[in-house]
């Protein structure tokens, strides 16, 4: 009986979505008008609670809604940037006032958000944050510096992790706030990278203020809230890749969507290069004649082995998951494998391009693309958790090896730290 019930439920849902879309979808409307409808009807985020812009739809049925949207190329709610991380965090840890203040404008895309976690002094050790939030009796006063903040230069709000208690142990002295980015105490500066792009920002806080009602969850629970954000970061990184594909559709709403996407994706335009562009290797080796060089052939073969075994290992992990089997160690190895592929690809591109590897822009091979690979690859083994941190995680959580003795227990005030931030 159960599968039949499931099928009926699915068909009823499909008809319901289809009918709603037929009545409401209008490609000539503005992005905000349409998304307001989505938020109000609950069809924008149907798996969310019906009380908060959703329909309490079970996760398993969500693909049906997405299929119906895709069938007629209906535009979705704003999923770009870190908006959905903010939404997921507020949905889980925020109070009702915060939910009604922020969620709708996240879905419509009217507000842009950024994430203020990393600091110059706490990269791998995120919980070692020293940006401080002090309560002066009426509001929180923020001082310190954040870094690697995508979108901060046009963000309306920030998700801020700051220290509120210096006597508590490291993880217990942090609190989580929503901060209004449009104030004089917040100053945003682009952070230029070694490859010339500036995808991220540094954010300086000098007596910036946060109202008491913008504390998310309770004082001292910031680390737990930040974990929710980070968990969704991993998920949305996968979703992002599939969302932003230009389908070349005509109409006002699509033009507005394209503009939004272009703005959000701008910082990521060099990301394919940082992964090493394995796809270019064979063609380049043939073009340059280096395919005849036995040393280069060995190096290319090595790269093919690394790249394909990494791909198959990811497939094994997915296949196990789909079968409902516990994910084996192969799941946690992907990031380390990707670093190895990128590093080796960079080496192979250098072998193939030879002396031209020194040249960039129009003077360089593929109009500077090869140069961009060579100077972008080092980011892969650092961003999103360094290779060394990945190895610690694999060793301790997958292999169950003994933990390193800790030097950062006890009151955070007494823990050894990096010097504080320099003035902006």
């Amino acid at each position, binding site marked *: 009986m159960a599968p039949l019930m499931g099928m009926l439920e699915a068909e009823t849902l499909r008809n319901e979505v289809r009918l709603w879309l037929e009545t409401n979808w209008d490609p000539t409307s503005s992005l905000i008008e349409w998304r307001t409808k989505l938020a109000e009807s609950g069809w924008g985020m149907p798996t969310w609670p019906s009380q908060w812009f959703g329909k309490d739809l079970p996760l398993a049925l969500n693909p049906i809604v997405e299929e119906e949207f895709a069938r007629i190329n209906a535009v979705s709610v704003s999923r770009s940037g870190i908006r959905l991380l903010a939404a997921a965090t507020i949905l889980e840890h925020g109070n009702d006032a915060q939910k009604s203040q922020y969620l709708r404008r996240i879905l419509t895309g009217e507000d842009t958000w950024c994430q203020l976690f990393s600091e110059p002094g706490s990269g791998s050790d995120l919980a070692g944050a020293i940006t401080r939030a002090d309560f002066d009796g009426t509001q929180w006063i923020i001082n310190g510096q954040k870094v690697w903040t995508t979108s901060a230069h046009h963000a309306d709000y920030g998700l801020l992790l700051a220290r509120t208690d210096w006597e508590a142990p490291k993880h217990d002295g942090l609190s989580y706030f929503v901060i209004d980015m449009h104030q004089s105490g917040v100053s945003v500066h682009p952070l230029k990278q070694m490859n010339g792009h500036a995808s991220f920002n540094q954010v300086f806080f000098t007596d910036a203020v946060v109202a008491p009602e913008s504390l998310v969850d309770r004082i001292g629970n910031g680390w737990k809230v930040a974990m929710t954000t980070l968990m969704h970061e991993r998920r949305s990184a996968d979703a992002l890749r599939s969302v932003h594909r230009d389908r070349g559709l005509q109409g006002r709403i699509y033009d507005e969507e394209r503009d939004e996407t272009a703005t959000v994706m701008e910082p990521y335009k060099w990301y394919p290069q940082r992964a090493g562009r394995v796809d270019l290797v*064979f063609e380049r080796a*043939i073009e340059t004649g280096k*395919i005849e060089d*036995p040393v280069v*052939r*060995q190096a*290319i*073969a*090595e790269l*093919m*082995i*690394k790249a*394909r*075994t*990494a791909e*198959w*290992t990811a*497939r*094994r992990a997915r*296949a*196990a998951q789909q*079968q409902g*089997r516990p994910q*084996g*160690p*192969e799941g946690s*190895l992907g990031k*380390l*494998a990707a670093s*190895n592929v990128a590093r080796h690809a960079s080496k192979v591109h250098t072998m193939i391009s030879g002396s031209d590897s020194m040249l960039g822009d129009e003077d360089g091979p593929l109009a500077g693309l090869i140069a961009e690979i060579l100077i972008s690859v080092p980011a892969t083994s650092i961003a999103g958790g360094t290779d*060394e941190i*990945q*190895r*610690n995680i*694999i*060793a*301790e959580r*997958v*292999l*169950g*090896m*003994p*933990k*390193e*003795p800790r030097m950062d227990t006890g009151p955070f005030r007494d823990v050894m730290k990096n010097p504080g931030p320099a003035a902006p």
Partner: protein
Amino acid sequence: MQFTFNEEQDQLRATAQKFFADKSPTAEVRRLMETQQGYDPVVWTQLSSELGFTATHIPEVYGGLGLSYTELGILFEEMGRTLFCAPFLATAVAATAIMNVATESEKSQLLPDIATGTRIATLAVFETSGQWGSDSIKLSAKNARLNGTKRYVLDGHIADLVIVVARINHASGADTIGFFLVDGDAPGLTRRTVTTIDSTRKLTQLEFVDVSARRLGGNHDQEAKLAATLDLAAIGLANEMVGGAQHLVDETVKYAAERIQFGRAIGSFQAIKHKCADMLLDVEMAKSAAYYASMAAASSDPELPVLANLAKASASEAYMRIAAECLQIHGGIGFTWDNDTHLWFKRAKSSEVFFGDPSYHKEQLIARWHH
């Protein structure tokens, strides 16, 4: 391709794991490696006639189980884990050769005894040049009489059947490759066990002086069939290697948790942890390649030749790196005879080069890809 094992395959793995853990503890490996024969005939009988492992990939019409290279790969992996000493690789590769080249009546005659394990078979391809390509085959076949030398022949000293790959020089001046069948005790055939660094695997040198042989599969050139046979052999060995490599990763992690220096388990040092994380990465990547290649063989994937190169090169490098790191993390004790690490280290070394070392397979991979 569904990149996962099904329930029956998981069951087969569990059965194999239990059998080899039981029959091939390290003490038994150490006993057998010192014998001239190199295997235990009683265990061989249990493995073949009771469990049917020797029948795995042989079609049912020839008395086999009709299973695929995926099942065979699982068995190889579990044997490799315990360094199981037996002529299994030799016999499985010889069976593959027969399945690839022989006529129906030859298969009906030869395969049933191999399936039941009553006859041990081996494939003799490589010669004193130490090259792994078919170009290096010099042993000559003239009027079905063989003259020449074969080296690196697996378990040739105990084989009842030897499948010999020979070069046939035609009157026209052209030459072709052909498969021949010779009895292990044929007149004119001298067999000598060569000294190997890995004594858990016996290699022999076979001298053929005017040995009478029977051509298998008719008179056409069989060079392509040889390549196909060696690809499957490389995939089998790759699966065996990842089993051994996984054993070493497990042993290393265990030892690092037990060994205390400077008042703490050495496994709590990042220098050791990071090596172990890389070892796990190595073995998992090599497993993916070995499994994928086995599954491709099971489904006759056209990409199979390249996958064989990829799987063998990947397993060779992973196993050897892991063996070296395992020994390093064990420190001084790892270099002693009494510690078991060297048994796997030596198997890693011999397997690294057997059926072609990583640079051979990488070159072949590019050559096959490029054309």
